[in-house]
């Protein structure tokens, strides 16, 4: 009760029934629905009308198509834009983005798991706070600054090249860059670079849900598994992993969705081949093809819809 006592100065007067505010609060008390409507009307006007409205109007554009000669949008319902979406060049973009999102997600799981497990099971006292802030600070620090930091790291004259030279391993870096698809002139213009930055920027979104799931796993389960003769690897495979799975799925929703929609990272660090986000950006901007942009936008929404539906069935939302 301490908080109430502090906040309630000794002589706070109670208004007698009959003053305006008391009568108004009586009205609310008798009509909870009216009160609820008053609470919700502003947020619903903002989110339901302004936000959902503009979203719906924009997505509906994908049902129209652009006239090839005039370059203007013809407002007649047609599926031509969707046919265009599945042309070879555009389908490549979708495939490339989904592949990138998948590999980023897998790599994030591998890096995130030890951090989450250590933080959930072994870190105590000060270390618990260190691990918590150690994940929260990178999560919240500026997105652009993080990308900028990687531009410094991956640049040809940057710290990675220097490091490889000091270790006399420059040949390894060159060999890696010589690999056809994932290589390039330097790391900052290769898919490897794009991949690294994606993993770095979204990693905290994977750590937190896995940690939340592992916090709920009792240590005695792990001990019981060991007592029953399981090798640590077996314990991991048959006890820890299944229990952490909802957290992993929840985290992968973030990493997958964020990678699908991002257009700034591949633009700054990566090759000139487009990802979905960049295609949307180009279509609505320079190309002026708003219907195709809207159709492209539907791709991540549909993929995430299916993914969320599957995740809900696996019970991933309890770990969010």
């Amino acid at each position, binding site marked *: 009760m301490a*908080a*109430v006592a502090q906040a309630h100065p000794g002589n*706070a007067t*109670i*208004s007698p029934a009959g003053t305006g*505010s008391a009568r*108004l609060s*009586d009205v*609310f008390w008798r009509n909870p629905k009216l009160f*609820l409507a008053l*609470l*919700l009307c*502003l*947020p619903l006007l*903002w*989110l339901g009308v*302004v*936000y959902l409205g*503009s*979203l719906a109007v*924009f997505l509906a*554009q994908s049902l129209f198509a652009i006239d090839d000669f005039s370059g203007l949008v013809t407002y007649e319902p047609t599926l031509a834009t969707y046919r265009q979406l599945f042309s070879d060049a555009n389908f490549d973009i979708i495939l490339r983005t989904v592949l990138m999102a998948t590999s980023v997600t897998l790599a994030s799981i591998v*890096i*995130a798991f*030890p*951090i989450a*497990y*250590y*933080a959930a*099971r072994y870190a105590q006292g000060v270390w618990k706070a260190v691990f918590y*802030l*150690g*994940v929260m600070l*990178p999560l*919240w*620090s*500026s997105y*652009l*600054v*993080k*990308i*900028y*930091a*990687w531009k*410094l790291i991956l640049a040809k*004259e940057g*710290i990675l*090249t220097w490091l490889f030279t000091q270790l006399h391993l420059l040949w390894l870096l060159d060999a890696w860059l010589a690999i056809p698809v994932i290589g390039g002139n330097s790391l900052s213009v290769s898919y490897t670079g794009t991949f690294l930055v994606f993993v770095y920027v979204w*990693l905290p979104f994977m750590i937190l849900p896995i940690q939340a799931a592992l916090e709920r796993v*009792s240590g005695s389960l792990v*001990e019981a598994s060991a007592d029953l003769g399981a090798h640590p690897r077996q314990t991991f495979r048959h006890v820890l992993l299944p229990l952490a799975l909802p957290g992993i799925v929840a985290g992968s929703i973030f990493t997958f*969705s964020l990678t*699908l*929609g*991002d257009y*700034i990272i591949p633009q*700054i660090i990566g090759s000139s081949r487009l990802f979905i986000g960049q295609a*949307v*950006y180009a279509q609505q901007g320079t190309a002026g093809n708003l219907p195709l*942009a809207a159709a492209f936008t539907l791709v991540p929404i549909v993929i995430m819809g299916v993914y969320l539906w599957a995740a809900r069935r696996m019970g991933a939302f309890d770990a969010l």
Partner: protein
Amino acid sequence: MRSDRLDRAPLPLKISACLGLLFLHLPILLIFLYAFTTEEKSYRFPPPGLTLQWFAVTWNRPDVWAALTLSVKVASLATAIALVLGTLCAAAVSRSAFFGREAVSLLVILPIALPGIITGIALRSAFSMADIPFSFFTIVLGHATFCIVVVYNNAVARFRRLSGSLVEASMDLGADGFQTFRYVILPNIATALLAGGMLAFALSFDEVIVTTFTAGQQSTLPIWMLEELIRPRQRPVTNVVAMVVVLVTLLPILAAYFLTRDGDHIAGAGK
């Protein structure tokens, strides 16, 4: 609950957890080093020399100041709007069960669950359809939309812990609804709102994707940085700005952490 308070982590786990944390932090630390480099034309490592001159140069740049001012103004107004709307939503969702309650909580999360580019373009095409010129207020509108969720999340968590018997006790003692809000509810949710507000401020201050679509000719600090990233003009100034941005966002996060950390000890929370 756990019987293994004292057991030790296996060495490989310790090493990989520490390496993971280093991976998360070393790149940001590198920003601090580069703010002092004497190199102007490239990202050469190690820096040929260290200097403080770029701080003075940045201090005298009107475009950096203009961008910073705009960012602070936008973030303040967006946070204020998000605080009001987010708290209203949280109060409605946590206090009563009604038809469409799930839909409301989904609606609040949607702007941050969908990729930013979708929110951005949707708002942009709505603005152009309604003939609204891009201005300070279009930026704020976009930012407030996705800031609501941060305030909402913090407030909902606190409302859930706020015991209903406190409110009932206040009513029994003769307080009307407004007095109960002022003297019982508000003091209890104040730190959660403050934390949510700080996170919303940090989110808005850093936002770039939605802003590229809802800003006209004006540039916020992230837009300014994005332009420098795509077409680097003066790298040392960018380095200094990047370092300042890291420091500025660090403080609200730390403050928000310490504000919500002790939330379990609130009166009536255990009931």
